[in-house]
């Protein structure tokens, strides 16, 4: 254990801080999957040029081309978060497709897509889940039928965030109907403007349509758009699912929520008494603070483990399960602090900012379910982490 940063990192931190100090006026607002505007595209370019976005993506594909250094990446994240300046764009194309292409794409695919994706010019959505294939994703039924140089795709995807603003989709389709379920899938890139694609917004409990349903009717896609080998899409996708699970349950987000809650408790009063002086609320705050700290330290441990190639399997397996639940609990606490005012979800003179907490409280429930439900996470933790057996086959398939 040595929590001091060496001199190289201290000066790197100063460099990042001074960059932010000088350029904060250029920063865009959004990290959410909305189409970036001109200002945000320029900010993204500036970040890439300085090595604060697409840091380790090779220069030939439009990245900054630095050696991977987890400590520097963390310093960048911390400095941006401390200055409340949004990091470079974060969307599914950048976080999931680009790593996949780098690992498994052809030269042509890398050249066509990586540069445009990291710059924000091309926006992607993910086509994995289907109405009948959620936790059992490998049972997916969207069919891609071989037709000369193309596939003809028919079927339906669901939970597709950003589909309505996306240029492209990375998608799992069944290309080999006779193969066993994991072996019949291919990972394919689809132009969303292709004839036969219909996007329908999916209204959720939050009152917004954060997701979509996407319908495919005789959609023609060139075979050259397959990433990896035909029939091996399940393994291609799994490479990126680990990236997604690392993103969900980010401890930096929990830490910043906790900070907002403490601010709220210092501002809000009930019967003239500040909430921060209420011992019952404080007890709950301290419980949450211990969990936030634990997950932050857990992420420091993972950082060192990946840097030094140490085994920290369990520490990694639990991040999605714990992090998403913690974020949900933090939002729930903020609502309880506001009491009746905490239920306000719309314009009102009495609004003390509950809308964003209510939205988080509901949307987090979606995150606890999405990206592998909490129950699937527990299966993975018990099987892969604790060495417990899978459900026996007869229970899965029914007696034949």
């Amino acid at each position, binding site marked *: *254990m*040595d*929590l*001091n*940063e*060496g001199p190289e*990192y201290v000066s790197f931190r100063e460099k990042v801080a001074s960059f932010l100090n000088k350029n904060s006026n250029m920063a865009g607002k959004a990290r959410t999957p909305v189409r970036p505007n001109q200002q945000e595209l320029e900010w993204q370019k500036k970040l890439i040029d300085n090595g604060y976005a697409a840091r380790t993506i090779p220069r030939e594909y439009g990245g900054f081309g630095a050696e991977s250094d987890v*400590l520097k990446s963390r310093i960048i994240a911390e400095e941006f978060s401390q200055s409340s300046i949004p990091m470079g764009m974060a969307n599914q194309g950048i976080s999931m497709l680009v790593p996949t292409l780098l690992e498994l794409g052809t030269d042509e695919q890398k050249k066509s897509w990586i540069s445009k994706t990291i710059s924000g010019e091309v926006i992607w959505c993910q086509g994995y889940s289907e109405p009948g294939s959620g936790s059992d994703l490998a049972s997916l039924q969207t069919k891609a039928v071989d037709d000369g140089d193309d596939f003809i795709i028919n079927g339906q995807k669901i939970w597709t965030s950003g589909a309505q603003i996306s240029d492209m989709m990375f998608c799992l389709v069944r290309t080999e109907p006779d193969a066993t379920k994991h072996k019949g899938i291919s990972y394919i890139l689809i132009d969303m403007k292709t004839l036969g694609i219909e996007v329908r917004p999916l209204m959720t409990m939050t009152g917004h349509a954060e997701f979509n349903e996407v319908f495919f009717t005789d959609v023609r896609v060139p075979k050259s758009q397959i990433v990896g080998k035909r029939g091996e899409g399940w393994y291609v996708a799994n490479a990126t699912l680990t990236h997604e699970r690392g993103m969900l349950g980010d401890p930096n987000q929990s830490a910043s929520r906790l900070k907002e809650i403490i601010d709220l*408790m210092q501002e809000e009063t009930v019967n003239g008494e500040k909430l*921060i*002086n209420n*011992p019952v609320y*404080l*007890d709950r*705050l*301290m*419980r949450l*603070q*211990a*969990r936030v*700290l*634990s*997950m932050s*330290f*857990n992420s*420091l*441990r993972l*950082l*060192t*483990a990946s840097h*030094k190639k*140490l085994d920290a399997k*369990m*520490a990694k397996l*639990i991040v999605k*399960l*714990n992090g998403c639940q913690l974020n949900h609990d933090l939002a729930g606490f903020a609502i309880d602090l506001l009491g009746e005012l905490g239920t306000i979800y719309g314009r009102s003179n009495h609004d003390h900012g509950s809308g964003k907490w209510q939205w988080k409280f509901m949307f987090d429930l979606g995150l606890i379910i999405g990206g592998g439900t909490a*129950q699937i*996470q*527990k*299966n993975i*933790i*018990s*099987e892969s*982490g*604790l*060495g*417990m*057996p*899978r*459900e*026996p086959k007869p229970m899965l398939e029914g007696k034949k």
Partner: protein
Amino acid sequence: MEFALSEEQEILSDSVKKMLADNTDIDLLRNHSKGDEGIRESLRKLVVEMGLPGLLIPEEYGGSGLGVLEASLIAEEFGRYAVPTPWIGNSVMAPTALLFEKGNILSEKWLPLIASGEITACVALTEAVGKRSNAGLELKGLKVSGTSIFGIDGELNPRIIITVAGDDLILVDTENPGVTISEIPTIDSTRPVVEIIFDSVDAEIIPGGKEAIQKTIDVGRVLLAADILGASSNMIDKAVEYSLERKQFNRTIGSFQAVKHMCAEMAADLEPCRSLLWYSAYAQDNIKEEASLLSCHAKAHLSEVGQDIARVSTQVFGGMGFTDLLGIHYWFKRIGLSRQILGGPEKVRQEAAKIQGFLS
């Protein structure tokens, strides 16, 4: 920056684990709980042979001069094996108290004797955390009278007792007349605690005042948290192991999702505690401004997580968990005692809030 144990720390932890695996088992815990007190002395000898009592004591006093993190790794193993042997009071809190102000005469006199294992030291600071109506000490001149309860490591005729009177830590040599030590029967038979009655006994003041008291309590809490971490981790391991042997409905019970999810939840709750503990222990020696807060969080959070694991893991064993045949209850009870010693979770969280300036 490096957030991991060093190779030396891993080796230390492994060697203690091996010594305990070779020399302790469930029968030892059972015999100890039935009153076989010889076990305490024979275990203590093994610990002394490894040179562990002087772990925190500087080399000039015959110790190895290591830190709270190393001491925590050992406490974790003692918790894992539920060992009835002095550690937290004798080898960690007592040296911490005596070393608060460097070079005082009491350190020079007593630390070499603790390091060599010639004597043991009992530490009784319950009254500094929360004084009960029938306890507390009074100092008249340098004579101490009164009662201290829940002293740690007082079961082997301790030569010295470190306790608290007013705003000072005091040290009492038990060879002075007027000290009566008796064991308090608690749920936990693996770790004796004692009541000490002082009847106008000569005492000496350990320099450092309130800050020395606080630092000694902080370190003690981190060590109790480490003990809970080890005990909880063992309970999960044992529960998983049992679930892979026990069959019902022609299947190992560990293949049922109901059981798998209980185990996954325990593991998911405990794993981040390891990082919290490492950081808290490291902070005691290296990040002074965070030491008290992190100590509170480690103690309170591991008490909560440990209690859940104690309950849920016992349930994984079904009826057997409830019996004495497997002896799982020794760990259940050890966690139960650690949770309350030096402040239960609510008390400790209240301190955590105050340290941050909340609760005006």
